[in-house]
């Protein structure tokens, strides 16, 4: 079987990550985080390499990858905007905030804009419950969202 060049590269970079982390106790999650950091998602081509490296079946690795919300099957947009939809934020109108963001971006949760600029996701609690409603943009936290802040965020991800 001939390998696509891209897939060979994924495999070699994956192997390097495994090599670095495999001596940890319970290395699979750290490895998957490492792979996602490297590629922006967990590529299918990485799965057999992990299975081989950790002496697991591909089904076991696939099972773990798909169990956790964080691991992506395909790359996200250039920005990732997570809107908290949990109770504390609900009490401060997160529903309306989400509706407005969806309308401004023209996408629903779990979708990426056509130009690939932003992926929108719900998150259930960022631990900013005394600063609701809250969001996370590319790892940066934002509290007390209001129309003005939403517009700033949308302008930033669109630029």
């Amino acid at each position, binding site marked *: 079987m001939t390998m696509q060049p891209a897939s060979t590269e994924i495999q070699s970079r994956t192997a390097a990550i495994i090599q670095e982390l495999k001596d940890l106790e319970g290395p699979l999650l750290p490895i998957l985080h490492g792979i996602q950091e490297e590629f922006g998602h967990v590529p299918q081509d990485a799965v057999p390499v992990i299975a081989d490296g950790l002496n697991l079946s591909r089904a076991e690795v696939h099972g773990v990858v798909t169990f956790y919300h964080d691991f992506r099957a395909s790359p996200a947009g250039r920005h990732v905007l997570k809107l908290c939809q949990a109770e504390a934020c609900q009490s401060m109108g997160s529903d309306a905030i989400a509706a407005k963001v969806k309308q401004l971006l023209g996408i629903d949760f779990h979708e990426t804009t056509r130009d690939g600029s932003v992926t929108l996701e719900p998150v259930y609690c960022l631990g900013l419950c*005394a600063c609701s409603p809250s969001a996370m943009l590319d790892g940066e936290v934002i509290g007390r969202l209001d129309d003005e802040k939403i517009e700033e965020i949308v302008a930033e991800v669109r630029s």
Partner: protein
Amino acid sequence: MIPRIYIPGDSGALALGAEKVAKAIRAELAERGIEAKIVRNGSRGAYFLEPMVEVATAEGRVAYGPVKPSDVKSLFDSGFLKGGHHKRWLGAPDKIPFLAKQTRLTFARCGINDPLSLDAYKSLGGLKGLQNAVAMAPLDIVKQVTESGLRGRGGAGFLTGIKWKTVLDTAGERKYIVCNADEGDSATFADRMIMEGDPFVLIEGMTIAGIATGATKGFVYIRSEYPHAVAVMNKAVEVARKAGVLGVNVLGSPNAFDMEIRVGAGAYVCGEETSLLNSLEGKRGVVRAKPPLPAIQGLFGKPTVINNVISLASVPIIMDKGAAFYKDFGMGRSRGTIPIQIAGNVKQGGLFETAFGLTLGEIVDDIGGGTATGRPVKAVQVGGPLGAYFPRALFDTPFDYEEFAKRDGLIGHAGITVFDDTADMLKQARFAMEFCAIESCGKCTPCRIGSTRGVETIDRLAAGIEPEKNLALVTDLCNTMKFGSLCALGGFTPYPVMSSITHFPEDFKPAPARVAAE
């Protein structure tokens, strides 16, 4: 003396613009040619005052808040580096009523200093508990923790000392201390605050747990939604290693203990202790049946202490000041203090550590100051997404594990979400089922299927389809979930659902009647 300015680096403060404030202060210092030291402290937890900037003066600290970048110029003009008066002036931080009324044991140091300065930690009593512990027999440490009455602050309220005793008594060539920092419950942020604001207290607590039980390795499992906490904890572990707090000779004693920080991957159910252990092992975060207890067969099948962040962070003060000192606070079988997190639609939101026993009404109305919107309080959810909704009629309930249980509720991780009168309790009940459906690990049928059926049934209720029959169906379903699920996700989802139905029946009336009633 070079002036010292304290600007919190806590993610709650950052979410409210602390970084922009820091930038503005740096720019202003440069422009005015003033030399000053900026310390990035944690948060003291009064989030309605964040970003709260403090300056060290000859008379002690002076706080200003909430500071906006646009306030910075006028702060300098008012001489804030010497504590000068300004519209954001709050005075001495420990005199601010919200903070002054607290009893801070676990959070005694949180937010005061640079969280990564071990010297600052020691200057405020840090490591005294560990110093005592290294000189004690393991059984005596366990006894002291047991006698303090400390119960698991993650929500289950199991006596911490008893758990430790089981691990101590179980033979094993390797044992583990696992800290559950998968703080996924909405309205809770105590774990995040302590990890970001006083990480050494957690490291100290875990090390004491290791010495007490014969465990030499610890893991802190932090949720991925907390990148700042992960960063601070990783750095703090490095500092602790270099200083000999962690390593083969803890504080120069023959005890070995080291730890690693691990990051979750967005699964709420991993806050359940057995799924957390599976996750740490690199498996799907599926719940395990108990027995065997984790204390006997836990991580990698080895005896394991698994405790919440706050339980472990409360141990150093118990080992420092003694069991009786800690036990002296509280009521009934709920001893010591509890960091209550007041969240959601509330005027004065934040962390309030106090002895058990305040009533729910005192917490919401007096300390929280009512709703942020100024509308009447309709309901408060206590204990996160699996906690019951309490109406005002139950505001006399004292904050105590047993008292809440008597009223079909739970304290959980002590988070309180306040809702004003615009809340629709049917919608909240539906969300509880929906959340359970999203986050169920899939092991138990009542949780996996029941939650989806619950959403559908509540939708039929909302549409006014056979209301009596569907209400009876939801009730029956809740009963099945409560008794037919292995863990608290399926088992406790009925709490928010049934409490909504019981206390707010008007929200579950068929749609036409609801419109007419309005």
